[in-house]
């Protein structure tokens, strides 16, 4: 089984070399003429009025929480799906009971407005 990972390791190393090589060539070939106006953050030609270091909407956080929960749900689905025929109806009922609370959770979130943008 570990032999499967030789290929992944090789492709990882080759990928890193390729990407770093591209950046390296760029650093060698590209000119460097820095001055402070050029280094300003790009805001359509205006001076930056508001710093990006501020607080943003909590909606993004709600999405991230739902994502964590349903990602965990998905990892319970994968091993079930692969052996689903062997487990037969027992496994099916198990996954139905497993899904039901999460469906309720999604519905609750939906009705409470956690999914509104």
């Amino acid at each position: 089984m570990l032999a499967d990972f030789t290929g992944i390791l090789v492709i990882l190393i080759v990928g890193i070399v390729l990407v770093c090589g591209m950046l390296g060539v760029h650093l060698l070939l590209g000119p460097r003429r820095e001055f402070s106006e050029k280094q300003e953050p790009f805001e359509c030609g205006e001076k930056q009025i508001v710093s990006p270091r501020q607080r943003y909407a909590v909606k993004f956080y709600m999405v991230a929480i739902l994502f964590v929960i349903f990602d965990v749900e998905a990892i319970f689905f994968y091993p079930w799906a692969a052996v689903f025929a062997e487990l037969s109806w027992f496994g099916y009922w198990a996954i139905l009971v497993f899904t039901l609370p999460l469906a309720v959770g999604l519905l609750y979130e939906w009705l409470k407005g956690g999914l509104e943008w």
Partner: protein
Amino acid sequence: MEVSAILFYIFAVMAVVSALGMVLNVRNTVAASLSLVVTMIALAAIYVLLEAYLIAVIQIMVYAGAIVVLFLFVIMLLNLREDDFAPGRQWLVKFGAGLLGVFVLIQLLKLVGPGLPEVPVVPEGYGGYRQLGILLYTDYVLLVEMASLLLLSAIVGALILAKRNID
């Protein structure tokens, strides 16, 4: 030494260094959480070397791909750049914590010590999804159902806590 052992030590050093980077980085919380990601990925690689393949993938998907993203989101949304240490007697706390850490580490290592049996050759299909799936949905099916209830309570709790003051 064989290749897998060398890889193990490389990833072990990576995990420890990035864990230290997470704990000791007081200036930049975003960088701290990113070094947590490196720890997670190094641990996933160690799981692969221990032939727990499915768990390794799940580790990357859930820990590195979901939980730390959630941390990053909160840090970025709340704009928590610097960590403000409370003034005074910091060194005492740090010294005490270090002492306690060394003590606990020695105790933990004493628990294991030498005398563990030789690492056996794994049976066919160890660490794959088939055996795990069958065990999970026969012997441990109650655990799975309880996990789902736990996740439901997490959804409801998070929604109530985070939404309360908006409406």
